[in-house]
């Protein structure tokens, strides 16, 4: 390193910038400003919110009920206006709530349940609500899996309006979901002379099937099916018969009945989902894909599509991604109405057996239909390899339920044997 003192050069006159230098300095300033100007312009162009604004006015951004040509939507709109002026008008409120519930069913859109609740707002928190309100409130509550509250409403309804057949029927359906088959049958018995023999048979069949009398219930329902009064009743009867056939091990018969129900009512999401399940079990994934095409708005169907994609080996797929996003959205809002489906998703798509088992157990606390039992047993068996005794412990309530109901469903029986054999 050279550190010696430099000899001081003779003092020189202060150096004035040359013209060239002045021009260079001006060019520097001008150039910098030009770069900044260009940058700011570019920055303005790139300044877009995280959201987008469509370029075209014509772009359709959402589908909503068509008030202009959908008669039900127009009627709801009209009733809502009337109710806005007279919110305490019971007749209007009940009419509107019923239409909203029907819309929730037809469009598989729980938003309408909230609209129905809004229509019933003046009576919603009243224990002594009028019978019409009790029935609708129970229907809304059970659809949100608030089963004890729904049953309380229905119990009261059957006391204050014992002739209301719908009350007894709805009560039987809820009791069935809760695994209270004897009470369900008692509720169905109250339909005697209050409803058609078809409705009575349809009411009894599932409860009978889960009380060790499956053949009796199925035979009665099959006998009464010609007496079904409407297409909706026929589709309902066929779906029930298909379920009973499935539980008795008649997969082909179940499939034929579901296809018949679907032919009668192509919009019947329940039948479509059940048929998809049957095809998934049979490994007929291409048929599931065809059957679920264009039904992404319906989560029940979308789930089957995602399951089929996962079964075909796909790990990333549009159906899987949307389904995962919807589960996440439901989780964020604190929903607890879809554990059965989420358990299937966790098990078959994400292979998270621990999460699947936890969800299935939570679900079993709320509803106890054969499908719920199946979900829990499948999760327990998958977890069994790692969890051993823990998984058997988790399955125990379902295994004893299976013994009590005497349900013959071969698929469940095989799962139970596999779990018992693992011990």
């Amino acid at each position: 390193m050279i550190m010696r003192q430099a000899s001081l050069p003779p003092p020189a006159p202060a150096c004035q910038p040359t013209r060239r230098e002045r021009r260079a300095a001006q060019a520097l300033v001008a150039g910098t400003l030009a770069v900044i100007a260009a940058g700011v312009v570019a920055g303005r162009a790139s300044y877009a919110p995280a959201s987008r604004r469509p370029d075209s006015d014509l772009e359709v951004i959402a589908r909503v009920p068509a008030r202009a040509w959908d008669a039900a939507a127009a009627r709801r709109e009209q009733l809502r206006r009337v109710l806005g002026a007279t919110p305490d008008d019971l007749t209007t409120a009940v009419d509107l709530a019923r239409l909203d519930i029907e819309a929730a069913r037809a469009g598989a859109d729980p938003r309408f349940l909230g609209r129905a609740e809004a229509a019933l707002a003046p009576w919603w928190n009243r224990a002594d609500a009028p019978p019409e309100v009790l029935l609708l409130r129970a229907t809304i509550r059970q659809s949100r899996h608030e089963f004890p509250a729904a049953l309380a409403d229905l119990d009261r309804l059957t006391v204050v309006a014992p002739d209301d057949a719908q009350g007894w029927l709805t009560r039987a359906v809820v009791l069935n979901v809760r695994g209270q088959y004897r009470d369900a049958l008692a509720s169905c018995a109250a339909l005697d002379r209050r409803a058609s023999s078809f409705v009575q048979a349809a009411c009894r069949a599932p409860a009978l099937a889960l009380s060790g009398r499956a053949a009796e219930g199925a035979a009665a329902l099959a006998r009464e099916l010609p007496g079904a009064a409407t297409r909706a009743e026929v589709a309902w009867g066929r779906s029930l018969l298909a379920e009973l056939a499935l539980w008795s091990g008649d997969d082909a018969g179940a499939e034929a009945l579901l296809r018949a129900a679907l032919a009668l009512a192509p919009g019947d999401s329940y039948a479509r989902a059940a048929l998809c399940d049957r095809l998934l079990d049979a490994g007929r994934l291409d048929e599931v894909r065809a059957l679920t095409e264009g039904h992404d708005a319906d989560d029940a169907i979308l789930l089957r599509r995602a399951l089929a994609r996962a079964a075909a080996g796909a790990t990333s797929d549009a159906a899987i991604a949307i389904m995962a996003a919807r589960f996440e959205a439901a989780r964020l809002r604190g929903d607890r109405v879809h554990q059965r489906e989420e358990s299937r998703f966790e098990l078959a798509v994400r292979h998270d057996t621990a999460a699947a088992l936890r969800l299935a157990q939570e679900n079993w606390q709320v509803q106890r239909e054969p499908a719920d039992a199946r979900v829990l047993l499948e999760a327990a068996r998958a977890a069994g390899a790692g969890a051993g005794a823990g998984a058997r412990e988790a399955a125990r309530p379902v295994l004893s339920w299976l013994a009590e109901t005497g349900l013959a469903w071969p698929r469940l029986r095989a799962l139970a044997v596999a779990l018992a054999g693992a011990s």
Partner: protein
Amino acid sequence: MSAPRTRVAGVALLAATVLTVADPARALAHKPSDSYLTLDVARGFGRWDIAVRDLDDALALDGDGDGAVSWRDLRLREADVADYAIGRLALDTPAGACRLTTRPLGLVEHSDGVYVSLPLAIDCPAPTASVTVDYRLLFDIDPEHQGLVRAGGRADAPAAPLLFTARAHRRAVATGGPAAPALAAAFVAQGVRHIWGGLDHILFLLALLVPAVLRRRSVDADLARAERAWQPVAAIRPALRDVAQVVTSFTAAHSLTLSLAALDLARMPARITEPAIAASVVLAAVNNVRPLFGRDRWVVAFALGLLHGFGFSSVLTDTGLAGLALLPALAGFNLGVEVGQLAIVAAVVPLCFALRRTVWYRRFALSGGSLAIAAIGLVWFVERALDTPLFPLVLNAFART
């Protein structure tokens, strides 16, 4: 349900309702109504995503009732949408209510469909650690509606949202933001860290400082004799005057553009800022070896300093600060940058002054050093212009930008 005949039909219909709606997957098909509200009170902004479906129910957006809400339907009712939403949200602080205003809405996709995304500007009377949120959207139309509110953070924060329901629609939430003094203090440190951590700013400053203890004697294009073109200043006073000129120009310039960018009055994409800053390093360094811009290096410092301000601003814009809340942060950050810069000046200038008479200083520090700085700046420029690292392991370890 009056005559027995219709009752039976009603039974079947509602039985079907029970069966299908009782199936949980059916209940899940579309989810119930939610809105997603992100509040960043500390930084003065928010974002509110509301389903177009819900807004249609409230405001009948679908004017012709054909069942399709077009962008035009929505665009024409934009003010109504904003008024409807803003009228159903209140933020209160001990010092008074916060003023909410909206910016042009956009569309976003959520898992169950298209939502209007409404940007909010939040002006609270004073920085506050907690704000009382009163959320009343849609409850009259749908008592099951929920507001999923994330407060005090960014939209992508992993924390679970707070649920606002018809029964619990008012609650205090932490803004997550410190009060103004704490915010400013935090950003002083940020500012220091930014200038010390950013080698490009340091090298630029060095290139401007090194010649301050010398006086250019003549314009000499001959590189070999360049060192002799400079002579040391006799006293520290002219050197300090030069340093003060350069540093003041640089400070004024970058403060100006930093403020413009942070206040969102002008923004420049990093794609342009970053290569431009690299180029400024090259120019400042080359100017020492081969004078390009005359003796008035403060002009160079000012012009190129404008670019550096945009570079600094990335720190502030990345935090998403906006509105009044930005001012303490901006002040703190700028102060931090100046403190960090003065620390460098204080360390470098005395050293330069002490060494100014050595040949080493002129030959190696001025010429060699400037050329080295220019070379590094050139590499950065190419890298940033092409967006590809040339020497990923060595230089980029320092060049945090």
